[in-house]
């Protein structure tokens, strides 16, 4: 994914992460797939020339696809909640990502079969949103906020330190997130996470922690390796109102 991903053409066939292009056979692929925006003009032309309408994947039938029962149940439950079926797209993609750790092509195909939409449709939706990952990601997901308030309080250094401690390429982390070679960590510089009160902060496996001191970063990484809570004392869920327990309240006319 490039940072301009959201601005990409909606045509799913040229989506960088769409792994079912014409070079892909049912069971494998010929050569490593690369994001289309890394291709040279000639390669891109060749790719487009090799495509034909028949290559477009149709809506998979449920009996053709093996869907894990828990996943199917989650998606069907989501479908039942909305007046219109397609509204379940994002919940379905969440279910896929939580099941497989990322929005894998197989997972997307399974969700598409359950929902009765084309995999390309779900793929095009998934590629719009920053939290959906279209490539496998490290076991621990660390999003370090680098927006204004966190930046003012040293977020750039925190992000760098996380990269060093986890073994993630800082350039990758800055842009679309990078994995550590051991598959333990995914680190990404992220936009404002809505917790500037604890800046500089990070979302670690979907929980918010901060303010993070530079010398705490190694501890966080060690604890995550051991499967422990990374920073229990700085969990935002424990935070009380900044103005303290006592503050004047608005008077109401008793129980009107």
């Amino acid at each position, binding site marked *: 994914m490039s940072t301009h991903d959201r601005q990409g053409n909606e045509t799913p066939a040229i989506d960088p992460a769409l792994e079912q292009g014409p070079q892909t056979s049912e069971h494998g692929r010929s050569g490593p797939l690369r994001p289309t925006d890394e291709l040279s003009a000639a390669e891109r032309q060749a790719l487009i020339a090799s495509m034909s309408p028949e290559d477009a994947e149709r809506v998979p039938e449920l009996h053709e696809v093996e869907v894990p029962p828990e996943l199917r149940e989650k998606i069907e439950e989501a479908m039942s909640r909305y007046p219109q079926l397609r509204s379940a797209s994002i919940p379905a993609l969440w279910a896929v990502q939580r099941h497989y750790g990322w929005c894998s092509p197989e997972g997307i195909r399974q969700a598409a079969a359950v929902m009765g939409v084309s995999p390309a449709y779900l793929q095009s939706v998934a590629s719009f949103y920053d939290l959906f990952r279209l490539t496998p990601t490290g076991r621990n997901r660390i999003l370090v906020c680098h927006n204004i308030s966190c930046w003012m309080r040293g977020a750039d250094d925190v992000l760098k330190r996380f990269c060093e401690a986890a073994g993630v390429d800082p350039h990758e982390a800055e842009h679309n997130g990078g994995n550590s070679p051991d598959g333990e960590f995914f680190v990404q510089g992220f936009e404002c996470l*809505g917790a500037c009160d604890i800046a500089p902060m990070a979302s670690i496996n979907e929980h918010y922690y901060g303010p993070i001191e530079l010398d705490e970063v190694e501890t966080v990484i060690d604890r995550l390796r051991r499967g422990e809570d990374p920073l229990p004392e700085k969990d935002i869920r424990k935070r009380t109102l900044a103005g303290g327990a006592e503050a004047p309240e608005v008077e109401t*006319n008793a129980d009107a």
Partner: protein
Amino acid sequence: MPERRLLFKNLDEPGLRTLDVYKRRGGYRALERAIRELEPDQIIAEIEESGLRGRGGAGFSMGKKGSFLPRGDMPKYLCCNADESEPGTFKDRELMFKNPHGLIEGIVIAAIAVGAQHAFIFIRGEYWDVADVLDAAVREAYDAGLVGERILGSNHSVQLVVHRGAGAYICGEETALLDSLEGKRGNPRLKPPFPAVQGLYGGPTLINNVETLMNVPHIIRHGAEWYKRLGTEQSTGTKVVSVSGHVQRPGNYEIELGIPAREIIFGLAGGPPPGRRVKVWFPGGSSAPVLTEEELDLPYSFESMAEAGSMLGSGAIIVGDDTVSVPELALRTARFYHHESCGKCSPCREGTNWTVKMLERVVRGEATPMDLDIIASVQENIIGNCLCVLGDAMAMPVGSMVRKFRHEFEEVIERARAAHGGPLDAAPDDVPPVPLGVHA
């Protein structure tokens, strides 16, 4: 001047997020009153009379918006905007996490008022823990007959779904939110038609921010007359202000609208670290044109921020002290909007891209003073030229920084010139200008 707590009352009380404690604190009495004593039109009238303005950014009268929805039995919808992605804003997070029933009660009352049978809370996907709390509270409310079919035995039915987003600032824009909720990529729509007339699934839709909706139970319970006594004439009520950046006690503070901004930044949030001064501040999220130290004594209200050429926006104050480099702040701001531009409209897609590139040149010391004029003119060409105001939301603060701190931009340029030992030519870009839209 201290806080003035209304939405924050009892907020840290253990168990407030359970139905039991919420009810003990007077919860759901407003819903009872709305159902037993008021007609839907009277609810809208009461809200309009209270002067309550939207807390999500635009500050539009909630009662007026509600009255724009057509009457009749067609399917209508209510969407609570809990996307909260405006940099600097974190009030809805604390409100929902600690008092989910306060939001649910507001939603149900508002849905009954406009005749919406389906309501959604569109919460940003990053707020996973908060969404879990909402899910649990919604389940409790269903079980108690406060949401769902025939609420409290009345003829009113409201289904409520917590919908988790997946990370895209643009989905906070109300029409992009609708597309996203319909299961599409979150691109904004052309307005008109406005959502009140044609919104979710083509039906009339009321969209309001979390904090706006959480004011509703208080208004219905205690009356518009009582509510109007809070705040100023044009900005009634209290406001939860998120204060962050270079202050000693960052956090959410609930204040009565109209108190001096200085009271919030210094009195409540403790001001910048000892020995530092306020240099620049955003009064309403990163989309608001910046203000300076001279403007600290302005009353914090919708009208006064607008008069000062900025806006109260989401009520997020970001403070930068004298250690902050304004050109770098401008770059940081522009990068965010560039990343978040959905790419549908050219002025925004290209304008954010080029603004980032030019600001990078300034910060690297490769710009000329003429570049500052170009930056300024790019901002002017974005404003008002797109489907939504995401591009404006970059153009306004960046434009204001170049205008108000031009000397600082020039200093950076001059320093680089001196270091290079001669006059600088505008450095040509290392990459040819490829329009981004066809770049993918």
